[in-house]
């Protein structure tokens, strides 16, 4: 009796802004795409995010950041994921990220960045593709 390997995604909002509408919309969209979404809500510290990613054994961490703090938060989150042996977990960002920062974030290891108006079903497709690639890579 085997079930398919579900894609598990952590949706978190690091930092201090209180706008979680986008995070909820994407959580719902990924649920409708057949994924298991662990929704942790507002004001998550990098430590909380890394701990939840570890305990929940997620494939993807989705971060909603509207505060402009992405260049401060992401290095710390990526470092903690690596320290917890979670380097293979894909990190994606949704929110407001200036063009200049996008390249820098990608160079750090962020897999994808989605701005306002991004299509939720194409985000789900991207996630499916990156998870399938990672799984076949890891055997």
């Amino acid at each position: 009796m085997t079930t398919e390997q579900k894609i598990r995604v952590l949706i978190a909002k690091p930092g201090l802004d209180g706008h979680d509408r986008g995070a909820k919309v994407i959580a719902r969209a990924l649920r409708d795409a057949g994924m298991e979404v662990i929704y942790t809500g507002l004001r998550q510290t990098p430590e909380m995010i890394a701990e939840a990613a570890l305990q929940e054994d997620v494939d993807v961490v989705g971060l909603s950041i509207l505060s402009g703090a992405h260049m401060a938060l992401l290095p710390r989150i990526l470092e903690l994921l690596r320290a917890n042996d979670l380097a293979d977990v894909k990190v994606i960002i949704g929110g407001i990220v200036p063009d200049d920062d996008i390249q820098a974030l990608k160079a750090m290891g962020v897999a994808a960045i989605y701005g306002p108006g991004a299509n939720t079903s194409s985000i789900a497709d991207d996630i499916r593709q990156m998870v399938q690639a990672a799984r076949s890579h890891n055997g």
Partner: protein
Amino acid sequence: MADLVEALLGGSLRALARLLTVIQNETPEARAALARLYPHSGRAYRVGITGAPGTGKSTLVNSLAKTYREAGRTVGILAVDPTSPFTGGAVLGDRLRMRDLAGDQGVFIRSMATRGSLGGLARATDDAICALDAAGFEIILIETVGTGQSEVDIARAAHTTLVVEAPGLGDEVQAIKAGILEIADILVVNKADRPDAQNTVRALQTMLDLGPAYRSNPWHHQSLSGILAPPPESEAESEAWQVPIVQTVAVDNWGTDALAEAIEMHHAYLGRSGKFRVWERQRLAAELSARLESALLERFVARLDTERLLALLDDLEKRRIDPQSAVETLLKEGDRC
């Protein structure tokens, strides 16, 4: 997989998390791993938390876990939320209310989706409990999906079952219906600071005053477990457990010390009355029965001819055969294969 089991027994939380994924995916590797983990399980005390959506189960789990941590005990948490029957997806939101537990190595929280199970738990809950138990967590808190009236699987999985109620959810007729209230070892009235909380307490007390429900074997309909673990002597012969009503305001951590104490009293009662061992045998019998059932069904279905099934379905649809006769026909044909 061997190294994951060893890593888990050596205290690796990463290995535990990975094994829980394998267990939920019900892979052949999971079976091999569980066979090795099982001898290391059986030490944890299991507390089930169930109740209607919005009664505050997750917040209560958060508060109860803090109480146990203050007493120096490690806590594993399984938080179950429903899978969509349409897309197979799920939003697991219980962690949202458990943020106080972040950063504590003595707490491990895992969210599980039901993946098609209807009894209020996830399909692989028994196995996930086994993994947390083998990893050395002393208390395992199992939070069910928001339950209605008949999701009673938790009574089988937990040593002590808490049924959480909140003010304003029902009248006294709700309290005498069969099902979820009957499985309570402890009734919790959460949000007890609400003005109508005393009405809820009174309604529940009235129900309890009508006398103890018959509760020696809540899964008697499973015939195999009936054979393996016959019900023990009636409550009258042994000491009966008096179900307490505990009031809490989980969001303020109010009342959870008293709740932890009530759980401890129930634990002591189970030991003193000999029910602990009876319960464990009943639980194992029910688990054996459920696993046998699903294995038999799987084996049987694998042998069935799809064309034959579709033809029978046509017959059913056209009222040429009734459902029970169709089953007898399939069984007869299956025996011949």
